């Protein structure tokens, strides 16, 4: 096994792992807040589910990028492993950083915004969509991170 592949795999794994952590923490926070509201007002389940699920996208993005990396490396698809130089391995590692880091941080913060949004949903159910929009604003940066990562990955050609 070459060192290049190792770096590339670490990069892909990092994207899945960090973005997943971000989402888990985010959903954890938003979910707790949502449960708090639900314990007093179970009728709000629908709107609270949306809020609690919003921070979940980062994990999906990370997972998606991870799959793309592994496909590129040939772990998936049956074409057999491709050979990757050390330099290419580092490049793939670098390409996975944007989604990994933005996924982690935006996930946590989206969770906080969603938790605050749960408060809005509890107090002013009419303004619930505004809270969703606020939470979605954080999402932008995870999307940008994913976009950057994919563009970078596509730019790297491996034999």
């Amino acid at each position, binding site marked *: 096994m070459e060192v290049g592949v190792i770096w590339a795999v670490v990069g892909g794994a990092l994207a899945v792992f960090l973005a997943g952590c971000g989402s888990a923490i985010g959903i954890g926070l938003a979910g707790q*807040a*949502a449960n708090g509201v639900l314990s007093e007002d179970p009728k709000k389940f629908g709107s609270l589910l949306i809020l609690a699920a919003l921070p979940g996208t980062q994990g999906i993005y990370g997972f998606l990028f991870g799959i793309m990396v592994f496909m590129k490396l040939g772990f998936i698809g049956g074409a057999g492993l491709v050979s990757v130089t050390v330099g290419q391995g580092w490049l793939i590692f670098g390409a996975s950083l944007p989604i990994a880091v933005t996924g982690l941080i935006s996930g946590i913060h989206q969770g906080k915004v969603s938790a605050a949004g749960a*408060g809005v949903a*509890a*107090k002013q159910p009419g303004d619930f969509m505004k809270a969703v929009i606020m939470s979605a604003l954080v999402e932008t940066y995870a999307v940008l991170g994913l976009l950057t990562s994919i563009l970078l990955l596509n730019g790297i050609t491996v034999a």
Partner: protein
Amino acid sequence: MSDDTRYAYAVGRIRALEPRLLDKSRFDSLVEARNAEEVLKTLSDTVYGPFLAELKETRGFEEALNGELKSVLRLVSDLSQDTELTDIFRLRYDFHNLKVLLKIKGLGSQLPSSKSRPLIDAGLIGPVKMENIVEEDDYRELPRELRMAAEKAAKAFRETHDAQRIDVILDREMYALFSQRTRENGHPFLREYVQICVDLTNIRSVLRVRELKKDKSFFGEVFLEGGKLDKSLFLKSYEEPMNNFALLLSATSYGALVSEGIKYRQEHRSWSELERLADNHLISFLKRAKYIVFGLEPIVAYFLARENEIKMIRMIMVGKLNGLAVDLLRSRLRDVY
């Protein structure tokens, strides 16, 4: 501002409860009610409803209010991750029960029967247990600070046979405990809350003590430490007219409420306005907690808002039962959280 994510669930729950606080328009309709029965009827679809349903007569309305108070205290205890801090709200009732029992013990023969003792079952220690502790004069079972306070008060009473000493000492010890706990646990919001409480109490104390024609040394005894305002500030204008005291405070955030309160006092011989403005000052401080997503603040603020609400309902009920004019009652209402 603290960002304590342990409180995500708790804050969510509090946010769901906050809409159930009575709002301004609800209070307006309570004030307009024709009589006490109508007030209770208006309250029946609120959180007080279940407690009111058990009520046998209108005059016993305070049981319903106490019921809600207890359930809010229980909620705060359940949700709080810093019981050291939130316990201060329950300790108030322990101090109250201590005062009652020490005084009753001091009265000796004229003991009111156990049932009619004005104890409140909302503290950390149940009234029955507290009764036994005071009866046997053995305070070892109490938490450390409470024990020291109780022993100090009991000793002072034995020496002076002055029941007022019990109140004065326990009040001072209670606030010393609050200040110490909030300082040690480094919770800025609660710490500032206690400081404001101390300041407001001191302001009211100095004006009342002066009105009662007590000397400086008596004020020194009832003065509470731990506030933002220094003791010397209170003593500086002690012998001068009250307006000078208001001038001294004009640079602080209490300036307006003190001068307004003194003005009302001079016109109507009543401290109602000062007390109302002091309560409003606290409520406006609590409103900061609305912008905190994770932390103890919203829980504390919710509890204090409920307490304020209970106070207002009591005021309206007392007013209605005694036929107070609607306008007067309306002018006494506090802000809502």
